[in-house]
């Protein structure tokens, strides 16, 4: 069994009248495997998402599967009782050709979950749960019964991505 220590520090000198700083830390006792990989999200997702709008439901066809929950066709699905952790960073996120009025010229990595696995009323798709801007990251203990996907939209009528480098790891 491997052990991992994660520490999150949050600090600000101007968000309040007093300087704000706190640190939380946890030790994960892992029973399975894990690692961090870095790749170009564009290599998997080529901009064919039918709805580039940042709202609305998705399906998993045009996104990269970060984690296969129970019910997935991926045979590596784990037991739903195993605590599992996801870390993802948008390393570059460049090259997004935004349309007029678009929020940014850098691509944003979106994460959504499928409704696969057990549940009272599973749905096929869901809204984006996370939007990671360039240089940003997310860390969450995931629900191991559902699948997690990442994609970076091209924007309506835009030229598409030139590269969205992400790094992520799933630990359990």
């Amino acid at each position, binding site marked *: 069994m491997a052990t991992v220590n994660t520490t999150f520090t949050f*600090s600000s000198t101007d968000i309040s009248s007093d300087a704000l700083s706190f640190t939380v830390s946890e030790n994960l006792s892992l029973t399975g495997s894990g690692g961090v990989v870095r790749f170009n999200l564009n290599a998997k997702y080529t901009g064919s998402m039918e709805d580039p709008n940042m*709202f609305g439901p998705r399906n998993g066809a045009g996104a990269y599967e970060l984690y296969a929950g129970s019910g997935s066709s991926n045979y590596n699905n784990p037991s739903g009782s195993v605590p599992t952790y996801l870390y993802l960073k948008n390393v570059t996120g460049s090259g997004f050709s935004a349309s007029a009025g678009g929020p940014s010229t850098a691509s944003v990595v*979106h994460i959504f979950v499928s*409704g696969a696995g057990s549940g009272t009323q599973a749905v096929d798709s869901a809204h984006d*749960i996370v*939007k990671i801007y360039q240089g940003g990251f997310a860390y969450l*203990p*995931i*629900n191991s019964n559902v699948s997690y996907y990442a994609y970076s939209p091209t924007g309506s009528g835009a030229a598409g991505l030139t590269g969205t480098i992400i790094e992520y790891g799933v630990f359990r």
Partner: protein
Amino acid sequence: MATVKTTFTFSSTDITSDALSFTVSENLALTGSGGIQRFNLSTATNSQSAYQVYNSQSFDATDPTYLYIKNVTGSGYSASAGGQSTSSYVHLYQSGSGNASNGTYSPLKGNHEGLESMAVIPQGGFTYIPINPDSSYFIFAADHTGSEGNITASTIVEFGVFN
């Protein structure tokens, strides 16, 4: 405009043959407000309800917004035989409310039918995510599977939303 620095460090001495350690950090340029609060989530359990940590109407969809949650104690869950743990987990889920195009899924309530939990935070654990500002986010305390059962004691959480 306030600024906030967040740093995440991940380290292990036995997950690989070599010691693993990396740190990521980002500086958030905030345009709105933010703060940390701590409360007892038990008031949002047993009644088949949940606590809203972010409302979809609070900020514009294009405003970067960040959510931090920690399950401070999460104790006192009376698990049934074969249950995963006697500690309560904090479940985070989102509704489909907000923008009109999100109307496919009605806001979750009651027994939380609909979308699955997107994060399951064990006792002592935490999460930090840049959220989708166009959805509402809710938390409730339950066992690992999401069954609320009987929360016999407190589930203290602390959370903050920064925009």
